[in-house]
């Protein structure tokens, strides 16, 4: 890490063009300035709020549908083809059409991010429900537990670890999409700020915002991981790549 910073510094000193490659010190100064006048937090807050809203929307849509698809084979047969047709079309490919329909504003990034987060969460929920140990379900049924209670007390807790991994995948893919969506079609947010400062050739500021995107993505993942350990301690640490 230290070697990397030293190399960066040497290269920046050699190029000596702050618009092309600023020194680490210049980036730190830009960071301090942007944090000082709260601009950094404003854009980060906007992006985060959009992210949370989209995540909530995607979860509300995908988890019930995933539970139903995992439990009911007929529904799975009917809905799955539509999912498999839409899934390969990445959220980003929807941007031009969505831009036309929704215009520049909050709706576009939220739509794109919800779409991007929807598929990982849905597939994770279905896989989680399918992987529930049949013996637990049979045991509950033998003891005369009604179906709704079996779902609430057996299926959902057993599917939770897989659901949490799916949630992390959903966050990762929608966080990638937010940058693209804001870069092209939003008047605010981290992606917009990056593009704004690029046009002004203020590279230190560009790098600051890029770092902010990385850091927020990292902490989001950490937070979800911690949440997983808190709410589903029975889940073995599942790794995603």
């Amino acid at each position, binding site marked *: 890490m230290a070697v990397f910073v030293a190399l960066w510094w040497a290269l920046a000193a050699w190029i000596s063009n702050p618009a092309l490659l600023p020194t680490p010190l210049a980036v730190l100064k830009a960071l301090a300035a942007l944090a000082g006048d709260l601009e950094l937090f404003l854009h980060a807050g906007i992006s985060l709020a959009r992210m949370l809203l989209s995540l909530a929307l995607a979860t509300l849509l995908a988890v019930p549908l995933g539970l139903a698809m995992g439990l009911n084979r007929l529904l799975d047969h009917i809905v799955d083809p539509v999912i498999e047709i839409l899934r390969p079309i990445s959220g980003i490919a929807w941007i*031009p*059409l969505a831009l036309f329909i929704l215009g520049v504003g909050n709706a576009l990034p939220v739509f794109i991010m919800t779409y991007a987060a929807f598929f990982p969460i849905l597939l994770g929920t279905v896989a989680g429900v399918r992987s529930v140990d049949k013996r637990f379900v049979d045991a509950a049924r033998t003891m005369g537990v009604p179906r709704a209670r079996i779902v609430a007390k057996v299926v959902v807790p057993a599917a939770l670890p897989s659901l949490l991994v799916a949630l992390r995948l959903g966050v990762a893919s929608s966080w990638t999409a937010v940058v693209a969506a804001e870069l092209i079609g939003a008047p605010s947010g981290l992606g917009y700020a990056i593009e704004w400062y690029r046009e002004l050739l203020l590279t230190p500021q560009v790098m600051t915002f890029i770092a902010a995107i*990385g850091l927020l993505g990292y902490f989001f993942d950490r937070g979800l991981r911690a949440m997983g350990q808190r709410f589903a301690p029975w889940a073995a640490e599942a790794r995603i790549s």
Partner: protein
Amino acid sequence: MSAVSHASRGLALPAARSIALPIALLVVWQIAGTAGGNPRTPVPTRVLAAAMQLVESGDLPLALLQSLGRVFAGFAIAAGLAIPLGLAMGAFASVERNVDPLIESFRPIAAIAILPLAILWLGTGTPAAILIVAYAAFFPIVVNTAAGAKRINPTLLRAAATMGLTRLKIISTVIVPGALPAIGVGLRIAMGVAWTAIVAAELAVGAKAGGGGSGGIGQMMFVFYAYSIELNRIVVCMIAVGLVALALDRALRAGMRRAMPWMSA
């Protein structure tokens, strides 16, 4: 017992069941779109006509080929860097200690976020797009390769060491074959990410370069959005993007099965 009855019922009319909802949705889309009365509203029949036009004129295949060329170039660069690095990280703890923090600090930064820097350094042409693809594809490959190389059965490594194999020989005869399935998974994830990244990169370059053509499917979509406002053609592009993503994934899966018949992936 219940599984058997499920299976027999599932066999009844599986094809009809699978296509029922897609066809119903297409019909609803067609009726709703035509009812609006606006001839620009995309509906399935118009999308189909637009698709025929774009394929016949050669615009769509050309754009797809341009994008695919960039994806393969970036992907090859990423694989060329990430596989050796991942193997080294898996085989030598000292390499991993030094490189891993660096990788983990760049991994959360989405490829698209690098795009402004790429445009700044390389302009709005093909090199910037290739850089984005290579960046996006690098991380899944390196992480999976390193994980695969580390997960090798230690008994095999000790056996090889006992028989006096050199470090390099152990890497080439034990670690590489053992890590191959994980490398394959990494390559497959990376290909999906790379294809998404190229569309995003070309879209953004199109949006920011004012249509000054560097080509590709993403750019084509942006031109249809911003200049000629042809929604039917945008939908054609979206479907093409999805089909290519599907085809790439299937091709890689088939390739993996050929390369590793002992794995049932």
